């Protein structure tokens, strides 16, 4: 038992207790949490910093505004409904189109049809706080539906694959691609059964994948190889992630990005308590990299410089 702990320590693997006590508590002041926990605020901050985010079609903050929904999406055929303070991808509806015959009937990404009334009930639930972290009242966002880049088409089962970058004090430290599976119900969360694939920061290419804490080579549903995919616009992704530090002020930050076929990488959300599975996906510990970042930390450096340093420092 102790020998396992010792070898983990030697590999620089970060544990939950250490993450919470040494990094989150020290570097992520509580008052900054709303910047990442409220997606409306995150979007505003990211936009004002000149970062690319999915367009916002509308916000529903009160029960009374639920009926404005059809006006908000009158011009749109596809959109995403999500709670502003949701976690783990819960409460997200992805609408990909409208029914041919009835304009008030929508088609979900899973292929199911959903009526406007049902979406409005879902919006009421979101506003009522069903999906919010604290159970308090929440807001619902209606935003651009990402048409994701074909790079990951082979290794995704429905849903939206995304890129997660853990940024330590502004320097990208580790990255992975999260690939939805049938088991994860199209969601890109590892603990729900999505496949995570570590990304070499230097080349932007994927490495071996991890499913339920175990290493895998193939996507469980499509059978395609997970490794050695090249992520487009990797430089831009790293620089945007690094900029997340300026935007949020959080020293230990997870930045989630999706790659749109037309608009390129967009920031989906940011996270003040990114999980530790990224270490398994990368077969590497975070502690060592974060210690290295402490050594080279330069408060005056710009996001692009930090992204470049991370590429050379943490290249496989």
């Amino acid at each position: 038992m102790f020998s396992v702990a010792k070898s983990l320590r030697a590999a620089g693997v970060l544990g939950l207790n250490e993450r919470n006590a040494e990094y989150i508590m020290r570097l992520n002041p509580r008052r900054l949490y709303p910047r990442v926990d409220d997606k409306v605020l995150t979007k505003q901050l990211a936009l004002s910093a000149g970062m690319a985010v999915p367009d916002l079609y509308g916000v529903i903050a009160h029960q009374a505004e639920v009926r404005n929904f059809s006006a908000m999406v009158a011009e749109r055929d596809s959109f995403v409904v999500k709670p502003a303070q949701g976690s783990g991808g819960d409460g997200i509806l992805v609408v990909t189109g409208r029914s041919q015959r009835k304009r008030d009937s929508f088609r979900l990404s899973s292929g199911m049809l959903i009526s406007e009334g049902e979406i409005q009930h879902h919006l009421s639930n979101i506003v009522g706080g069903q999906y919010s972290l604290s159970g308090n009242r929440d807001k619902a966002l209606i935003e651009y539906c990402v048409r994701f880049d074909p790079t990951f088409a082979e290794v995704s089962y429905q849903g939206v694959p995304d890129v997660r970058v853990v940024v330590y004090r502004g320097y990208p430290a580790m990255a992975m691609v999260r690939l939805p599976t049938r088991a994860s119900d199209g969601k890109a969360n590892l603990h729900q059964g999505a496949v995570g694939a570590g990304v070499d920061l230097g080349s932007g290419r994927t490495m071996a994948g991890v499913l339920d804490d175990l290493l895998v080579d193939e996507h469980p549903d499509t059978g395609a190889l997970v490794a050695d995919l090249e992520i487009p616009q990797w430089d831009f992704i790293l620089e945007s992630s690094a900029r997340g530090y300026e935007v949020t002020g959080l020293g230990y930050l997870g930045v989630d990005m999706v790659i749109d076929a037309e608009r390129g990488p967009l920031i989906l959300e940011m996270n003040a308590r990114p999980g530790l599975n990224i270490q398994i996906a990368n077969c590497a510990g975070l502690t060592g990299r974060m210690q290295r970042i402490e050594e080279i930390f330069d408060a005056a450096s710009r996001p692009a410089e930090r992204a470049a340093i991370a590429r050379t420092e943490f290249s496989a």
Partner: protein
Amino acid sequence: MNQRYVYILAALLTVIGSSVFFYKWQVLGFPVTEDQETAVWTVESAVHFDSGPGSIKVQLHVPSLTPGFRMLNENSVSRGYGFSLNYGSGGREAQWAIRRADGEQTIYYRISVYEDGSVDESDTTPPFPPKPVINEPLNTAVEILVDDVREHSADTTSFTTELLRRMNEASPDSNVELLLSGVSSSADFVDVVTMVLASARIPARMVHGFPLAGRQRSASLVSWLEVHDGDQWLYFNPATGEQNLPERFLIWWRGNEQLVNVAGGSNVQVDFAIQENHLDAVTIAETQAAQRGTAAVDFSLYSLPIQTQAVYSVLLMIPIGALIMVIMRNMVGIDAFGTFMPVLIALAFRETKLFWGVILFTLLVTLGLTIRFLLDRLRLLLVPRLSAVLIVVVILMLFISLTSHRMGMDSGLSIALFPMVIIAMTIERMSVVWEERGPADAIRAGLGSLVVAVAAYIFMGMQWLEHLIFTFPELLLVILALVVLSGRYTGYRLTELRRFKELSSR
């Protein structure tokens, strides 16, 4: 920096908590284990006499230095008499006085003592006694006897033993016979022995008391011989020469003065009665603490009303449960619903007992979840839905109680003690996790809650621990210190060793 404050705080809490604990345990004698009883003897002396025409003054020797015993309390019952305690040549004296009294009088003095080996005689070393002036022919007899015994002995102990042997011989020699010619009681005998020892310049005195054993309606005083060998007082049985006091010998007074002295009265008679009681060790410790005037007794939970004590004996176990909770979650890494839900479930287990507790809890949560899933189809808003689950939980509890009662199993009745609000929240959380993360996660966390609850129950149900915390609530500071320390535990959780095992093999 941060870390150092944590250690300092934890050390401070531990030191305060454990030093108060140690003081109460070692000095005040609070018992660390339950059901410790101490035998307490109450000795009552009754002085009877017929009053004379004038004022009356009664002096009674009472225990002052009592090796092996500690006094719990003492009191006197004497109607109309003025009472005071003074120090005389033979130790403490109780004194009663009255201007006028009629007829037969009885005065009581009562003392309660308990055995305490730590009470040593704090007597001073006496000076060598002067050679007593003895009239002839006794003087010659004493001198011959002393010379003779000295030749056959090496030190004070053997001198005394040899002397007592000679004086107790069935057919004593002529010198001893001469010395003992006027002796009628054992007190007189010891008096003569003391005189012979004084001639040999050995400090000796008579002690009077009783061996305490059971209940005695009229105990008679026993005289014993106390001899100082230069370092300490030694005790001898004057009748056999055997060294040592009888078992549980309570020394009442010393010296050759009369036990009681009544001025202005006649027909004096003193009776002793002894009674043995068993008192809770805690009571004795508290009385002692009160005598010393320490604050420990003011903050003792035993001073609360009994019902409140019962509540606190349960409440004080919650910190233990919290500590178990911290260990299970942050060091072992077991997932559980709600921060303190398992502790509250463990509290309920105290009443239901473990087997039925686990069964009832599982039944309740399973039924609750089923109904919660049915409710889900109604698409209720959050707060009404939670309230509906709560009401369903109450109805289920009622249903389970009634059913099990009809089936003749009264264990089902205790389900009423489950914290229903907490269970309703648990059901809600569990159903949300079930939907969002799948049944596997929900059941895992549900079982995790149960495991933590059982672990907390096992520790919270330890009787000795409950007694310890209740008697020494300052130990909560030590628990606080442990919790604070574990708050800075940054090592791996046990479950993480498994989770990251792919990484450790590299």
